């Protein structure tokens, strides 16, 4: 059983939001597939816990770097201290439900800064400093929201994810000739702390919109990301991969 195009052996992969629900699972799944992982997050305890949950690999020690990516100095320090990478999972993000008439400039700026500006600026810094090797793969955690549908109260989040979608496709276009691919995964609801603002009743009702009758587990998203990082997806670039249990079909 040698044949495994999904193997990540010999690859080094940077994961932002590496302490969170999806990010920590991406680390675990990718380490099981043989990758050396560099996790980054600004939540120290959760970051160390995520680091200790990774499976040991031959390609070197896994790393964890505490960084607030909305801070330019910390972002640049992160880029300077990491090794060259083969995969970049740009996953950190926040969500807050606010109806349009209650949007404040402060919240708009905060969420944009985390969900849109930091991913763009980190991608820029990694590319400018040539940290992503040829044959490398960039994967954004975008969303079904903003890209495939919108829902009430989710304007800011959806707008940032729509921005990520446009950025993802632009990077795919610019860096394809340099041998670097760029894609996104677009989840619907995932069972993580991010959807904690919904009540149980709201969640049960929302699940009826999912033909598969459940929300995603972090592993469902992580495995999609692992595919896009692997050589199995060598000819896939500029793609927004829906992983939503069929939610956006109707």
């Amino acid at each position, binding site marked *: 059983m040698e044949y495994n195009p999904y193997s990540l052996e010999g690859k080094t992969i940077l994961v932002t939001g590496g302490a969170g629900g999806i990010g920590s699972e991406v680390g675990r799944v990718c380490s099981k597939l043989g990758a050396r992982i560099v996790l980054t997050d600004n939540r120290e305890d959760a970051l160390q816990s995520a680091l200790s949950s990774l499976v040991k690999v031959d390609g070197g020690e896994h790393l964890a770097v505490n960084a607030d990516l909305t801070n330019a100095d910390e972002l640049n320090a992160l880029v300077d201290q990491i090794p060259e990478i083969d995969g970049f999972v740009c996953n950190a993000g926040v969500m807050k439900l606010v109806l349009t008439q209650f949007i404040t400039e402060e919240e708009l700026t905060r969420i944009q800064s985390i969900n849109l500006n930091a991913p763009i600026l980190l991608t820029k810094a990694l590319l400018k400093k040539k940290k992503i090797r040829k044959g490398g793969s960039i994967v954004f955690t975008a969303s079904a929201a903003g890209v495939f549908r919108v829902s009430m109260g989710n304007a800011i989040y959806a707008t940032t994810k729509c921005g990520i979608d446009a950025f993802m496709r632009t990077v795919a276009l610019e860096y394809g*000739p*340099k041998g670097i691919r760029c894609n996104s995964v677009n989840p619907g609801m995932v069972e993580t702390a991010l959807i904690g603002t919904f009540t149980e009743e709201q969640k049960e009702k929302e699940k009826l919109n999912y033909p598969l009758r459940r929300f995603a587990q972090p592993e469902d998203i992580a495995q999609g990301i692992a595919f896009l990082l692997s050589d199995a997806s060598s000819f896939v670039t500029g793609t927004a991969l829906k992983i939503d249990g069929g939610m956006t079909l109707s």
Partner: protein
Amino acid sequence: MELKDFVQNFANQFDETDAEMFTPETKFRDFEEWSSIIGLSIILMVDEEYGITIDADDMKQAETIGELFNIVQAKA
């Protein structure tokens, strides 16, 4: 503004061409890797690194990296 740094910054916009191929006398359009996208990245590099705006016409006037350096320096 140092010529040596300028040549280095110029070379950084390329991925395939060997770094040692870049000198002030280099006719950069002769490189196989040269493209309009790299031309655009040179213009943006000059803006980012030196805070100087050059345009496509400025680029056209330069045959070598050294000539482009002189054009940029004249605008400083």
